[in-house]
């Protein structure tokens, strides 16, 4: 990483600190400081939302519901029960996170818009409950007389101190967000957004990470709700209504969905716009302006303010790096040989009586074969033979109708792709599944996901061992890139590479996960002759490390030259399973490929 780039993060933090520190000096007076406090609370509430929406692409349209929970918890516990405001805030966080978990755990299994609608529905239910449970919440009139914020009876002092306190909390949230951003979980979120199929193939537990972000965003939203209520000194159902949800959404969109800073920037921008409208006596226009801003920014400036500032910085710092030469000479010694595992010749993968039908079509019909440790096994057959379906059944992408798949003696036919990857089965895809939203190095680092253990708490606090683990991942990813011959491509984005090189990135990503078994789905498709030759050498180098390879392939020359064992499929059934020489002369194989007449 260049020095200019490594300055970017501290510079951004310093600039934000200075802006927040100086603002009350420039515009003193209780009203402007109050406005700054409102912006700070909102900033804290948007950080998790950026991670959820901008990083993991999970829509939640009722985010203000969690501000309601925080706000009501603080108001009710402090006013009715005389609790300490800080403790009430903590209870609010726990309640919000618990509700988020209960809701998200089942809902986030579904893709698409369900979360958007459900989160909106939850907020509307909360509003109804707040209105109806008059004895607890005060109904439409709300709860009045919320005390000023204090920590264990220690008062914070005047409005100015509270302003700074709120922003300190906001910066803590931003710090947590930045720590997540540059961690294995941050990469996992971007991977999920780009391709759930590929994310699963490197062992990323998709539901788990989505749920984590929903829960974190709920916790941060709850903090914002509590702090806001201690500023307003009252809580009612309108404070964090549907309009507030929309303002949060507009804030993260204007601020920028691809940067943790986007939330804080957007919250400040939204608050400024609202104050401007108020001073112009145009409060009715708020909805129209917020809605228009949302649409226009999404259509024309998807990076938002943070994206624009980042691009400006890069331009000023002259960080336009392009077209650095890529070393095509691979380094076979870059990756260490595989350690442990079964000894060569033992059965590694056992497919037994596997069946899968789509309606009346038996795509895979009672197929059985074994893959020996250390071998290169090829699965071939004419188009429509059922090879890719069989591959998907082994990789966990489709359920089996019948049969078993055993890996190192353990059944894996019921496991999900991420669980299968977790056990040491790597995978590449016929149609490339790279993550276009990450650099080549980060793509390959995703392969390390299963080997690293840093959890969400350690990452949020950026414990020393997290940094060590990151450094180790980076080193291993560079080694995997050197192994396939892509040194120098680390900081480019995959879309800037040729198709052949993109394929190599996929192989590097799979190899970075130190697989015991590598599944390759038509690795030569789309490659020219030279590239195919290089691929064959690469596969041999992979096997030389002790990694067992199972590939689906069309290119007969490639297969005949490489494979120790060839399994031939036709019309969903296995018709041959032997060494290359035997299979080449097998009448049924010739018939399947060239037609019945060729045999006669």
């Amino acid at each position, binding site marked *: 990483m260049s020095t200019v780039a490594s300055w970017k993060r501290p510079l951004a933090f310093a600039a934000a600190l200075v802006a927040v520190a100086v603002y009350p000096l420039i515009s003193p007076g209780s009203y402007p400081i109050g406005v700054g406090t409102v912006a700070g609370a909102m900033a804290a509430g948007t950080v998790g939302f950026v991670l959820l929406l901008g990083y993991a692409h999970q829509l939640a349209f009722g985010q203000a519901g969690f501000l309601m929970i925080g706000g009501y918890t603080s108001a009710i516990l402090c006013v009715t029960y005389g609790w300490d405001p800080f403790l009430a805030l903590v209870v609010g966080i726990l309640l919000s996170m618990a509700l988020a978990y209960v809701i998200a755990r*089942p809902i986030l299994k579904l893709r698409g818009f369900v979360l958007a609608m459900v989160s909106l*529905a939850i907020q509307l239910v909360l509003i109804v409950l707040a209105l109806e449970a008059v004895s607890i919440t005060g109904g439409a009139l709300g709860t009045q007389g919320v005390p000023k914020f204090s920590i264990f009876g220690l008062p914070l002092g005047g409005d100015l101190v509270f302003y700074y306190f709120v922003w300190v909390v906001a910066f803590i949230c931003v710090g947590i967000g930045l720590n997540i951003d540059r961690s294995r979980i941050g990469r996992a979120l971007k991977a999920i*957004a780009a391709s759930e199929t590929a994310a699963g193939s490197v062992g990323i537990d998709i539901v788990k990470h989505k749920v984590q972000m929903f829960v974190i965003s709920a916790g941060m939203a709850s903090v914002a709700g509590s702090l806001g209520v201690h500023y307003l000194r009252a809580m009612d159902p309108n404070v964090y209504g549907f309009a507030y949800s929309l303002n949060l959404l507009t804030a993260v969109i204007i601020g920028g969905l691809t940067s943790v800073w986007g939330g804080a920037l957007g919250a400040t921008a939204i608050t400024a716009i609202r104050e401007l409208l108020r001073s112009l006596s145009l409060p009715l226009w708020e909805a129209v302006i917020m*809605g228009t801003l949302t649409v226009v920014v999404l259509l024309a400036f998807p990076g938002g303010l943070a994206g624009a500032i980042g691009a400006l910085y890069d331009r000023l710092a002259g960080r336009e790096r392009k077209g650095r030469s890529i070393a095509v000479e691979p380094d076979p010694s870059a990756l260490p040989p595989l350690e442990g595992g079964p000894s060569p010749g033992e059965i590694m993968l056992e497919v037994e009586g596997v069946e899968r039908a789509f309606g009346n079509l038996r795509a895979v019909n009672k197929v059985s074969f074994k893959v020996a440790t250390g071998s290169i096994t090829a699965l071939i057959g004419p188009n429509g033979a059922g090879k890719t379906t069989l591959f998907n059944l082994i990789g966990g992408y489709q359920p089996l109708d019948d049969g078993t798949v055993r890996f190192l003696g353990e059944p894996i036919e019921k496991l999900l792709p991420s669980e299968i990857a977790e056990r040491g089965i790597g995978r590449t895809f016929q149609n490339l599944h790279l993550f276009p939203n990450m650099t080549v190095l980060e793509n390959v680092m995703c392969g390390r996901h299963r080997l690293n253990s840093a959890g969400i708490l350690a990452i949020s606090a950026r414990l020393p061992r997290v940094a060590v683990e990151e450094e180790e991942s980076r080193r291993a990813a560079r080694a995997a890139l050197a192994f396939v011959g892509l040194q120098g491509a680390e900081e480019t984005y995959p879309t800037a590479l040729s198709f052949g090189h993109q394929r190599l990135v996929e192989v590097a990503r799979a190899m970075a996960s130190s697989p015991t078994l590598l599944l390759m789905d038509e690795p030569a498709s789309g490659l020219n002759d030279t590239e195919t030759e290089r691929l064959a050498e690469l596969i041999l180098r992979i096997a030389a490390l002790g990694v067992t390879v199972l590939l689906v392939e069309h290119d007969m020359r490639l297969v005949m030259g490489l494979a120790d064992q060839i399994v031939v499929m036709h019309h969903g059934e296995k018709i041959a399973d032997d060494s290359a020489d035997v299979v080449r002369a097998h009448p049924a194989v010739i018939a399947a490929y060239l037609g019945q007449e060729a045999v006669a």
Partner: protein
Amino acid sequence: MTQSLFFELLLPGLTTGCVYALVALGFVLTANVANVVNFAQGEYVMLGGMLTAWLYAEGVPLWLAIPLATVVCAMIGAAQERLTLAPVRHTPQFIRVTITLGVAVVLRGIALIAFGKDPLSLPGFSGDGAFEIGGAVMPLQTLWVWGATAALLLVTFWFLKFTDIGRAVRACSINLQAARLMGVKAERLTLLVFAAAGGTGALAGIVVTPIVLSTWDAGISYGLKGFIGAILGSLRSPTIAVAGGLGIGVIESLSAGYISSGMKDAIVYGVLIVYLLVQGGVFVFGRATLIDGSREQ
């Protein structure tokens, strides 16, 4: 007595259910052809009602105000597609969906500024008389709502079943990619479907306005409840979506009458959440969960 109470709850439920059904149908058609959930769907119901009521108040006769408002809403629907969705056909889906929410907010905001905060009303199309079924007395306008909904549904289903364009729409909903390869011009269909969804939404809003009035912020509730209907059919089946919409109307009305009118929304949304929890996988484990959402976004 109890029987007449039941009818007094059931029949108005069917009436609002008609609106939800038409909104649900709009959701299904736009979701399948344009591959986007249009959060502005409910706003067209609101706009149709508000616009007609406003035109009527300005002295425009009803027979002119109704088609005028419908056409304007259809045009807004088409404009929404052309201006805010067509330019970003290839961006991630969550951005496209968020854009529709932004459009919904703009439409609400414009209605608030143009027509004000107070509810607007229209006279019944055939006077303010009433009729009786099973001991329940209903305003005559109810028949207009039922009749208009039945007519719109008939036309839509006939269109889907028996015209080339309708068959193309159905083809898109089965397999968008294959439909394109077969020469279906999905871009033009998308425009058409958005216009139609805007127009039918508006008509639904117009016929119920004499019964339930029309307010600037009613769109979100119509949209959400219509969406619940649509999602019962997995956003795929127009028939289930319509039945779902009607059912939601009835559940809402019955729970308002038998349980609490303040809680009716909480009950309907609660039903949705529970349904989604069950359907979404509380009892489904393993790879089966991958199948349902296997369409990569």
